């Protein structure tokens, strides 16, 4: 005796959020049933294992059938097949596009290609995220990437509009797209301590300040229509960054800069001596990063450079986060007093981002 067929269809589609999460997490039906039973679902409604199994299978089937619609969430709202309340639709989409920070950390900055997809087994084994779930998340990244790639206009807005995601999630996806597009190196051992949220924050900074879209601003309609405006860094700006080199090549400027910063810092921090000793080194590091950004290869190494050239020396000198803040504030602002330095705007645009990125990245 065996159950040949077992279906339950509600006029309003019934979806259990717990089961949905298990499905998203890539549990098999059997495992999901086990998890549910251990979670005490049997105590509700005098259920038994068969009932839970039947319910789980049904829900899995429903989710599977809805998955096609979730690939283009805008369709979910005006499709006729499933009657789902708007509130529930939002939950479905948001959860479907949610991802594990552990997983995304592994693929961040990688090319969203078939090659990477083949490595998903390894990532799955490493992160403990099921392969099924890895695939879904990877496909989501790829799908969002593909859609926004062809769209004009602001990146976050496009993602939010096309995938009906919350602001937070849309921003995260923007970061993923941005990283994938610029192929930032995030996998090196030295960068391992950084979380996805650290990178996402930095991506937000770069998108908002260093891209073509950043200059255009929300008012200029024409510029809004530039392709990849938020995905590619502003080439003109990168060129201009070369001008900053004068800060380290001109001996006078460098000394002047150093004395200004040191005057401001003296007595305000325990690590003053180290700061003073390292000033030229650190300044060279930051300016060199800026000057090299015209090379795609160096753009990729942006984060590793930041860590190697700046964060690591500071950390070995045991700067506190407050020290860092103090130092960078004065380091940035002192340049304004250098009257021979003519590239204040570029400097601010550069250092604004560097400052907030380093603040975010400066932790254990």
């Amino acid at each position: 005796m065996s159950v040949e067929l077992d279906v339950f269809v509600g006029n309003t589609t019934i979806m259990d959020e717990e089961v949905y999460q298990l499905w998203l997490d890539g549990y098999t039906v059997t495992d999901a049933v086990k998890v549910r039973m251990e979670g005490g679902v049997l105590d509700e409604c005098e259920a038994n294992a068969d009932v839970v199994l039947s319910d789980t299978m049904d829900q899995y089937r429903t989710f599977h059938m809805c998955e096609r619609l979730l690939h283009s969430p805008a369709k979910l709202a005006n499709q006729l097949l499933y009657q789902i309340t708007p509130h529930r639709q939002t939950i479905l989409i948001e959860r479907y596009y949610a991802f594990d920070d552990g997983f995304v950390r592994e693929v961040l900055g990688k090319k969203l290609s078939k090659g990477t997809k083949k490595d998903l087994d390894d990532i799955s084994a490493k992160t403990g995220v099921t392969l099924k779930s890895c695939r879904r998340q990877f496909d989501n990244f790829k799908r969002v990437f593909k859609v926004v790639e062809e769209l004009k206009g602001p990146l976050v807005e496009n993602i939010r509009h096309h995938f009906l995601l919350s602001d937070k999630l849309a921003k995260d996806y923007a970061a993923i797209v941005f990283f994938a597009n610029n192929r930032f190196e995030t996998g090196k051992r030295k960068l391992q301590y950084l979380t996805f949220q650290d990178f996402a924050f930095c991506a937000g900074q770069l998108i908002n300040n260093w891209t073509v879209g950043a200059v255009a601003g929300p008012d200029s309609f024409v510029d809004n229509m530039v392709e990849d405006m938020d995905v590619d860094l502003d080439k003109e700006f990168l060129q201009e960054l070369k001008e900053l080199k004068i800060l380290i090549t001109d001996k006078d400027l460098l000394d002047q800069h150093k004395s200004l910063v040191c005057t401001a810092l003296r007595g305000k921090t325990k690590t003053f001596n180290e700061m003073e000793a390292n000033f030229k080194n650190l300044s060279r590091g930051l300016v060199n990063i800026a000057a090299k950004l015209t090379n795609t290869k160096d753009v990729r190494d942006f984060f590793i450079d930041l860590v190697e050239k700046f964060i690591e020396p500071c950390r070995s000198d045991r700067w506190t986060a407050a020290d860092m803040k103090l130092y960078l504030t004065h380091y940035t602002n002192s340049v304004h007093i250098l009257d021979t330095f003519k590239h204040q705007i570029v400097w601010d645009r550069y250092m604004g981002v560097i400052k907030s990125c380093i603040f975010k990245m400066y932790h254990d």
Partner: protein
Amino acid sequence: MPGKLKAKIVAGRHLPVMDRASDLTDAFVEVKFGNTTFKTDVYPKSLNPQWNSEWFKFEVDDEDLQDEPLQITVLDHDTYSANDAIGKVYIDIDPLLCTEAASVISGWFPIYDTIHGIRGEINVLVKVELFNDLNRFRQSSCGVKFFCTTSIPRGYRAATVHGFVEELVVNEDPEYQWIDRIRTPRASNEARQRLISLMSGELQRKIGLKVLEMGGNAVVGYLQCFDLEGESGLVVRAIGTACSLEKLSSGSILNTHTHPNTAPASNACNSPSKDGKESPLAHGCRSTHNSPVHSACSSQRLSQNFSISVPTLIFTGMGSGGSAGKEAGPLKTLLRQQTQTALEQREFPFFTLTSFPSAFLLHVGGVVNARSVKLLDRIHNPALGNTRSYKLLDWNSVTADEPETRDAWWEEIRQEIKSHAKALGCHAVVGYSESTSICEEVCILSASGTAAILNHRYMREGCLDIGSTDHRFEEPSPPTCGFCHIPYDELNMPFPAQLTYCYHCRRQKVPDVLFTTIDLPAEAAVTGKGCHIQARLCRLKKKAQGEVNATAISNLLPFMEYELHTQLMNKLKLRSMNALFGLRIQISVGENMLLGLASATGVYLTALPAPGGIQIAGKTPGDPSNEQHILTIQKRINDAIAKNKELYQINPPELTEEGVGSPIPEPRQRSRLFRSHSESSDELSELDLSHGKKDAFVLEIDDTDAVEDIHSLLTDANPPIGFYSCNTETMPGIYNWTSGIQMFTSVRILRLSNTNLTNQGLNKIFTDLCENLLKSFYFKLRSMVPCCLCHLNFTVAVPEEELIQVAVTAVAMTFDKDQTQEKLAEKLIPKGGSDTDEQLQFPLELCADSSNSQPSSKISVSSLEHSSPLPEGRSRSLRSSRSFGGSSVTVVKMTPLSFLPGTRIIKYLGIINMFFIRETTSLREEGGVSGFLHSFIAEVFAMVRAHVAALGGNAVVSYSMQDCVLMENPNKNQAQCLINVSGDAVICVRESDQDSLASTTTIGHSCSSTTDVTT
């Protein structure tokens, strides 16, 4: 040209990719009605085409308008090869033919393909201009309203209930035509869908004609079924109740939860037979004298009010014995038919309604049931081979000498039912329904209903004169218990039953148990809550062919009926209840087994005596170990009864009643009361003697069957806390519904791998299947607690050897836990009213009202259309319908009930009757048979919702899935499924939006309803 149909194709969306190269589609649309076809331009390279076509105009007969659906085909244009079909939409334009229903169909329809399912959507606009004059009117039946709802629809008043209408149409099944061998599955499916659509259109039109002939303007309780008889053809049949409905002003409907009491009621009348004679022209209703002897009943062992046609069954089954070949068929001899006039014979006093305006139903006798086993034969169709024309067989015109037809079969069954009703002293059958079960060439026809005596005031003619009929006015039955009073002669009881004086009014006799197929009357006095009760049974049968098979089945049927009945009775007693409503007994036939499923809602009627307990008896009382065993079982049963009493809050107020000392209970009754309480051995032996065999009260433990019975009794789990269930419209004891509803359909198929199963093993499997389904529902719907599963409708089938299929459609409705609501109080008022003054006042008020309203109702009948639609009601409904279109997809609620809690139905938009076929040749890829059916059911829901939304509606009431036929062949990776659904499309508004309006108009408008409540 009496009608102009106009259609406009606006746009498409979400179309499938038809051209792999471009990932796009070059779509165009063909619009077809009858033999006329129009085409739109090709909209190149888009998945969201904007055709914005001109208006395509079809000038057609209104007969065609009724029969034909508008057929819209979406195609992909291909320059070099044939155009590929994307899918189709069939739009039934019937709702547009009724001035009171929808005026335009406009909206997004899913594009459906029988192989691929839904493939995108299309936006269509349809209008109809009718230039009908009243002469033309009679040839088509445009304007007759159809309702699936089995009560008088909300917002209407039944001026007259004319009675039973039935019709049947037969044709060859396209699936079995020779051409099917060379055409594609898609073409075959579409031919079938189209044919059935045509046939049901014609069926509806013909029924409409009958209604017009009777002088009615509507069909209520319309039930249409398909019999897929395979080789021998396709039958579409329908039954309904013809009525003359009048629209009420929107304010005068009092209460959407209980049944509206707005129809004019008259005083109760206790002499049905006399009334019957006085109105010889009455259409649906005819009373006859009590038949003192009724062999069908007396010859069987069934106790209580339960009558089945066992002898007839045996005879019809065996009748085929001598005659050779298919041609002969079973005997059509009708046994024990009483002499009737030709006129009487032609009419069936049957009503498909299950709930009635107050005072319509006077007495209820009990369930009447008839089954007949037939051998199928190719339907005699003179137009054989011509698919377009099929013969309509009107049984009225068929004389006895004509060849055996389905009509004659049904006639036979109906006569049987009629005679059973007579035997119960009743002149009418209410809650009437018909069904079939087909396996290969054997077909079981079943009909069942509730024998009843009705108030003639609702019949046509001869009922207006109040003075002549209320000669028993001095002794009216209160509505709270009147229907329980026995209609038959106490001295000539048609079956053994224990009679007592009514526990409510103490004036009339009532039986100890009452079984009915109707809903609990709104005004009935009930103690505690109701519950869903189910009896399940499997019987193995040898595989056989033809007449041998039919005979074997006929022989099994009476035993199955008997056992189902015993199970029901035991389960009822276990729950300490004394009445069943909504009883539905299905018997399904398979190649090697018969399945029986009886579902009902158990209730404790205050008017009926308290049920006795269940006594376990051993055959060998001497054996001490056995004695011990019996004692433990007895204890378990007693515990279960006590627990159930508490669970369903059954605390009958007997003691207080005795204390008050209401009208002199006879000594006999008192002793009986006493006995049923203590369950003394005296009572038991008496019962034993009277029934000869084991009866409902005593279960003999030695019998293996009895062990099984007890087992099944005690394994039936009660619903978990917070859940209630019933199979009727409303749950007795729950009145304060909140607005949460969830309609669902669930199907489960079990494969029996064990080939040598016993009856007992099968029973266990079947019982577990049903119980597990219920458990699954409770689990799935646990977030809705407290809630009640209403209208639980189980359908069983044996699709193949070794397969058992159970399909369930029901609605879960949330309610407020606090029962301290005015509605309850309202219910209790008439119950408490024992003083005659009040009882007199009630019917008097109603009398006055009915005499006033009757003439007006007559006028409206003759002038049909033009009397009712109120300008203000109409304009409001239009406004509200528009407001629903605000969001991108209209939310359409569906329910098998006739109402939606917390809302008021302001407009009926027409009947929804849809038939779909889905087939796949990639079963595995679609997620197996479960995945296939899951998506198909979801698609059917989607299409129903889309049609309702396009009519401007936001809900479907009285929704039902009549058929769900699944055929699978996993080895070939194939499956096919047929689903037929129906319901009433409506516009409803939240109750609170209307409250202010209602309260002002109620006072002025209908005094009958206000007095009802305020007294």
